[in-house]
């Protein structure tokens, strides 16, 4: 692990809360409001961190473990990505599956924590989350397969780094398709508008928000931060697929990452402003579109 990749990881860890912040700010600007300042997510996290913790008596140790494990899995997943476009802090053959697996495990703990409260409301959210995950995860894996096939490598470090740099020009259409698929998956994983509405607290519509209703104080801060980090990780994935960092010097590559993350957050804000939340039954269709788009990228590579 060299300086640049450590700097990339540190940048993403520090800037992660800005991604939802910037997305919300974009949404405010486009709907004619001034909106919360960009640093609002940081202030929210600090406020939650100082607060006390209330734990329901019906819960078990699982409930307390959830925030920590969620953050730990998301952090590990972030460590698998070559955020500077060259090297990842952790890498081994087949780590693309570990990446998908870690994110899935984080989700699993979150769902378990929600079920642990015994609230039927949270159970409903958990059931929705898992239902949508069964469509989002194949789409993510299909997008990663496009990358693996394009680069002929099974390490994320090479798939998004060196090997991608050498084939980048030849497979650009497939990469654009994979990035489009990843962006749709990111909207679902980040619980953003066409799939879930981060601004609502309506019983019938929530997915992510409802699962964390019983968490409070520092626990909620950990979950919120892990969620922002997950969004940033998907953003970094999209940016690294579209722009091969290996072709740029490390400093420029990091600058591209930051600029790309900002554009990604703005794109999320724009999508949130121009589309309405889909009906539950329509969401799988959206995620299947991601699968179809990534599958098309795959077909282009295989001919």
């Amino acid at each position: 692990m060299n300086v640049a990749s450590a700097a990339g990881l540190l940048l993403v860890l520090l800037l992660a809360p800005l991604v939802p912040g910037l997305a919300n700010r974009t949404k405010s600007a486009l709907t004619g409001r001034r909106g919360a300042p960009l640093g609002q997510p940081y202030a929210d996290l600090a406020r939650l961190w100082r607060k006390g913790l209330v734990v329901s008596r019906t819960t078990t140790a699982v409930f307390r473990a959830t925030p920590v494990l969620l953050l730990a899995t998301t952090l590990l997943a972030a460590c698998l990505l070559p955020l500077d476009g060259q090297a990842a802090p952790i890498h081994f053959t087949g780590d693309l599956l570990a990446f998908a697996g870690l994110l899935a495990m984080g989700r699993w703990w979150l769902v378990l924590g929600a079920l642990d409260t015994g609230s039927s409301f949270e159970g409903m959210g958990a059931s929705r989350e898992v239902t949508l995950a069964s469509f989002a995860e194949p789409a993510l894996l299909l997008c990663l397969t496009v990358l693996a096939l394009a680069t002929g490598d099974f390490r994320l470090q090479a798939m998004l780094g060196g090997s991608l740099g050498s084939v980048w020009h030849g497979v650009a259409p497939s990469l654009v398709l994979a990035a489009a698929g990843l962006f749709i998956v990111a909207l679902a994983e980040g619980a953003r508008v066409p799939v879930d509405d981060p601004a609502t607290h309506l019983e019938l519509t929530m997915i992510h928000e409802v699962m964390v209703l019983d968490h409070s104080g520092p626990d909620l801060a950990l979950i919120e931060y892990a969620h922002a980090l997950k969004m940033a990780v998907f953003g970094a994935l999209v940016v690294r697929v579209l722009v091969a960092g290996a072709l740029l010097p490390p400093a420029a590559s990091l600058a591209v990452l930051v600029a790309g993350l900002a554009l990604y957050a703005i794109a999320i804000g724009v999508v949130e402003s121009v589309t309405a939340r889909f009906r539950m039954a329509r969401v799988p269709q959206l995620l299947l579109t991601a699968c179809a788009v990534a599958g098309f990228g795959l077909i282009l590579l295989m001919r």
Partner: protein
Amino acid sequence: MRPLHEVLLLAVVLTDLWVLGTSRLSAAIRATALQGALLAALPVALYGDASPHMLALAAGTLLVKAIVLPRLMSRAIRETSVRRESEPLIGFATSLLFGAVAVALAFGIAPRLSLPGLQSEMLVPVAFATVMIGLVVLTTRGKAIMQVVGYLLLENGIYVFGLSQAQRVPFLVEVGVLLDVFAGVFVMGIVVFEINRAFDTLDSDQLSDLRD
């Protein structure tokens, strides 16, 4: 980077999938209009020459497929105030799956077909995929307007296939085909109005109830 015509052909397939995945009639019409514009740019990008023959073909395609026909269809849905495809024979997710299979099939079959003088190896698979997706839309959607869209997709696929041989096809034939499509959609538009007036709905299923 890839040549421009390959990017255009890719975009054509994406618009196909767009039509397949949307339930909104206006979105489907917008997608066909976009596809018409892409197809108009295709011959120029493909042959790279600005001969009068090619330019006329491009201009004619742009006029008919990207402007006149979409307008005609938009007017039809405005007059009949139908907004959505509510009861497709197979669901949107399933038809997207069908579309993906069609694209895979097209890219699988096309290399086995050896045609003389192909400009781009993507022409034939994209043509096949568009024809197949057009067929899916034509046969599985209930609203008459969506069937017109499916018919247009089908014809667009044939147009793409024809482009692979464009230098051999006389100009008059192409203009004739464009005119045919125009007349076809025009007649369909009138039929759509009539169906709507007679049954107060655009569901073509109603037509099979005429027997008794």
